[in-house]
């Protein structure tokens, strides 16, 4: 549901960068999205379609790099992907962990002409 606001912010950021580079049009936007953010790529794509109309990013392709939610066990120091309904370390069965990836939400790069 938060994709509308997120897509608008993403578009603002992209247009600002494109303008800075004096680009005529944006061909591709490379996004990085962490699994924990709950951002749905299809929704972003849908909102982008109408938000970008009439801007230099209209028609740009969106690429999504999804980063899995990754935890580091505080007891055995091993890294592992956090499973949906099982928050235990697969190596030592500890419940004590730190989230080290999965909160990403950024524009990595844009391709412009």
């Amino acid at each position: 549901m938060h994709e509308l606001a997120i897509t608008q912010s993403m578009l603002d950021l992209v247009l600002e960068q494109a303008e800075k580079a004096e680009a005529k049009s944006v061909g591709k936007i490379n996004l990085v999205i962490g699994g924990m953010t709950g951002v749905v790529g299809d929704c972003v794509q849908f909102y982008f379609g109408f938000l970008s109309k009439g801007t230099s990013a209209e028609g740009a392709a969106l690429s999504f790099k999804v980063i899995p939610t990754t935890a580091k066990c505080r007891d055995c120091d091993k890294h592992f992907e956090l499973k949906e309904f099982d928050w235990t370390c697969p190596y030592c069965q500890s419940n004590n962990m730190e989230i080290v990836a999965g909160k990403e939400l950024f524009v990595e790069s844009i391709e412009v002409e």
Partner: protein
Amino acid sequence: MEIKVVKDILGANEQIAQKNRQLFDSNHVLAVNLMSSPGAGKTSLILETIKRLKGKTRVGVVEGDISSSLDAEAIGKEGVPVVQINTGGECHLDANMTSTALGSVPLKDVDLLLIENVGNLVCPAEFALGEHKKILISSTPEGDDKPFKYPLMFHEADVVLINKIDLLPYLKFNTDAFSRAIKGINQKVEIFPISCTTGEGIEKWVSWLLTQMSRRQS
């Protein structure tokens, strides 16, 4: 031509949030962001908190709802300054909406600002408002699997209030398993079981708030 950007999509929100934070700090206001799913008890908690803090501290409220001013009217009856934000469809408050609302809050006459976010366990977790603390209310009828379904929200919370504990005898809610799951991914979190109906546990929550306020003032 490829341009490296590597910029946070919510960077603009973050900047406004920081300005809000400065405004809170310069007015010596403790701001807390109350988040939960719809019906978990945010407004009931605010009403209970106001009652218990009467004469101890000056409370202000910002009410976020998609539409209506029912909650703001209920809170206004308690005699505290309250500002309603209607998000007009947006499923969360953001820093900009909060900033606009702050223009109508007499911050100089407020020590504690309770910001009631829109009822939703997904979107509010992403948008900082400038608050000092994030409070999550999770009520027992929602089930003890909520941390697994909404990990970001439970990861970000400074406090989790388990509301409606008066209903525990009628529910299959495992308080220990629920608390263990949250503490596993969020070491700093403090968990208080409460009931806004019976008043159980509210005193501990209120004293936590007072401790935070005195820490900030010292």
